[in-house]
């Protein structure tokens, strides 16, 4: 095809021109002029100029381009193919807007401005202390919250049995009632212990709290359990579980959006990781609520401190836990030592043990009898009755 190239006048390069009306093409020669690409039909003196600013290229012009396909707004529909690497490289200088970098920036510019505006808006909302998710959470009706809570409990405790030893359940209810009263709740929190070795406790929507056998076993006193319970109630009062679920739904939508709708395993992993645990601020708020509840209920807050100390020891045994201390800002939980200090700084007040010795023993034995947890729909029926 470029055999004609040899017979071209100096400075001109062989090219193929198509008018965009049919799929036929014809031989032309081109050269880089002062203001644009000059196109001369083969064996003709007539020259048409495509101004540099009017050009667009099939692919961004890279330094190693071997040829170039051009279009021009000066002649809509027409295209010009120049199979010459030197021409393509020289064109980079004359029409720098055709390079990959320039193209990227052109398409990125509105997004950069948009992102800056969004960041500004978020910062303003944050600075004003308004949490839209929290506001949305507070509008959820109580029945919705309870149902959300039931499905959360059902999926979290799947495969674990409920601890139902009578004396233990009575002790737990007594403790829950004492703290719920202190919180000024009309209906006390529903607390349940599951036969689960993990050391953990969760607040779920609708004023429900799940504790594990591992936690009851590792706790040194009833005051420690009361501390943890007050902390989880704090989460409940602050609507953190509801907020968390709304945030998770929003996050799932955002991840789908970001991953182009095909949010695969990677996206789900990220989502899962992002969902675990509350924010540092939320933990701090729950701690403050816990201290208030304990004081109101006349239970010593030392238990909460002791429990943090226990968690600290477990964390210290974990290598990554240690190294994480260098990344305070990245952590979702406030450092345990900081939380323990918060408890120690509180003024003393008159307190009685959270449970007497007998009841504490009963609570420790709550998992001596276990049962299958009721199915969520059975729960619903019971509520109706």
């Amino acid at each position, binding site marked *: 095809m470029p055999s004609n190239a040899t017979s071209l006048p100096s400075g001109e390069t062989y090219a193929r021109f198509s008018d965009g009306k049919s799929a036929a093409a014809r031989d032309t020669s081109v050269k880089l002029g002062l203001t644009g690409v000059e196109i001369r039909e083969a064996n003709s003196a007539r020259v048409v100029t495509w101004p540099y600013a009017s050009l667009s290229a*099939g692919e961004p012009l890279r330094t190693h381009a071997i040829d170039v396909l051009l279009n021009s707004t000066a002649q809509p529909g*027409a295209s010009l193919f120049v199979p010459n690497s030197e021409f393509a490289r020289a064109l980079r200088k004359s029409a720098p807007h055709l390079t990959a970098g320039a193209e990227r920036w052109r398409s990125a510019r509105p997004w950069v401005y948009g992102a800056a505006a969004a960041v500004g808006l978020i910062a303003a909302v944050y600075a004003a202390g308004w949490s839209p998710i929290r506001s949305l959470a507070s509008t959820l009706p109580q029945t919705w919250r309870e149902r959300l809570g*039931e*499905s959360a409990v059902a999926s979290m405790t799947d495969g674990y049995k409920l601890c139902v030893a009578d004396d233990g359940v009575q002790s737990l209810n007594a403790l829950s009632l004492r703290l719920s009263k202190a919180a000024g709740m009309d209906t006390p929190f529903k607390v349940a212990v599951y036969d689960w070795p993990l050391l953990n406790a969760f607040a779920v929507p609708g004023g429900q709290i799940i504790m594990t056998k591992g936690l009851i076993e590792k706790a040194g006193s009833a005051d420690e359990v009361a501390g943890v319970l007050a902390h989880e109630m704090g989460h409940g009062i602050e609507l953190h579980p509801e907020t968390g679920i709304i945030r998770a739904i929003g996050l*799932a939508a955002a991840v789908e959006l970001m991953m182009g709708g*095909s949010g695969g395993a990677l996206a789900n992993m990220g989502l899962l990781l*992002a969902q675990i645990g509350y924010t540092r601020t939320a933990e701090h708020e729950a701690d403050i609520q816990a201290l208030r509840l304990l004081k109101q209920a006349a239970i010593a807050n030392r238990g909460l401190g002791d429990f943090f100390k226990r968690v600290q020891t477990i964390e210290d045994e*974990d290598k*990554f*836990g240690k190294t994480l201390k260098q990344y305070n800002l990245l952590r979702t939980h406030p450092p345990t030592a900081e939380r323990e200090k918060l408890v120690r700084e509180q003024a003393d007040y008159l307190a009685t043990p959270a449970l007497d010795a007998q009841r504490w023993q009963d609570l420790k034995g709550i998992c001596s009898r276990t049962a299958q947890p009721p199915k969520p729909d059975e729960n619903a029926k019971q509520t109706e009755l």
Partner: protein
Amino acid sequence: MLITDDAAAVREPVDISFKGDTAGVAGLGFINGILKVLTLGLYSFWAKTEVRRKIWGATRLNGEPLKYTGTGKELLLGFLIVFGVVVLPVLLAGVAISLISAGDQRAIALFQGLLYLAFFLLVGNAVYRAQRYRLSRSEWRGIRGALVGSPGRYSWAYFWTLAAPFTVIAGLAGVFAYVTGPAVGGLIMIAGLLAILWVLPWRANYLRAMLTRDMRFGDRPLTYSGTARPLYMSYIFAWVGNAVIFAAAIAATASYVIRSGLYEKQVARIPPDPMELLPIAGIWLAAIIASAVVTAWYRAMQINHFARSTHFEGATFRADATGSSLMWLVLSNWVISLLGLVAGVAFAGALMYVAGGLPSPQAFQSGAANMLAIVLAVPPLIIMTTLAATITQYRGARYLLQRLKLDGLVNLGVVMQSQSQMPKRGEGLAQVFDIDAF
């Protein structure tokens, strides 16, 4: 205007070639990965467009490149619309269902069943629309491609060609289960599902014919003349081969489960040690690789069959794909994807190690490692997998285009610009279903 006289009415050969630049593609994949990370994934629409421009630009007819004229913005808009109309309502409906049913597994299963059915109905639509968008954004010498039929018609064909035989089999199995007991019904269902696989070559040819006959280059149609019969010879080999491979894999798994004591553990509800499950993963990995190998021959024959059944202006396409070359493409692309993943995990691990140690499972459970893990692990993973995916996609396109020929002469001067309307937005639905050709 420059050109005014009539195009010469000469019939000429059209030579298809692929003039690629593999190093450039790797560089593009790498930059796209970085930009995806920096934009939290939003750049993926532009990344896709950039890769297509590269592949289209490398595809040459008589030495002149194809041009891809789609934009990232069109893809984003198309996606946002489908996101608002399909994804978000489904997500919210899922939440509402679990809320209303309070975690009742039957209600959730019913919802998911209906969802799969709806998705299956939509997949054909997505395939057609994506193809239509891509063709409308493909140009050669300024002449556009087009797909002029109805997505609904194709979508319905896509659905019933599989749903109809399935309904017949399920109905038969149901009747026998009712009359003679569940064992016979079950057997008929399994045999029926194996038999349904024999529909696939016919279905592939039927759908291909439908799609090809709707295709235009400029104002000229492509035609399709193939029947499914030639596909069945190679399909017998693939079907028998796969049946033997998967039967062997099932037998090997069952034998291992019984001999290693995993079965007793399952009965006693003792969770198995992950290391004990490794041989099972090995068996199935080997089965999947063996299946890809025996299927490659059929797929190569299918590519060749589709090509020689497709005609344009009196010329006929020809592809010379072979089982061995396709097998090599599939296996080497797997290796590249795996290397990308391994490199991503290795870089992520190295970053975390430099940051002060690898996280323990407890650290993840306590939530302490969340942010750190996301900040450190996700970027290298995304960059390396994007790089690998770009290379494999490019290799797939190169494989096909290097083997595709057009036999016969075409009068290009009579092929005029397409007058069909161009879709305004990109292939949103196809992205949601992750259907992507190049």
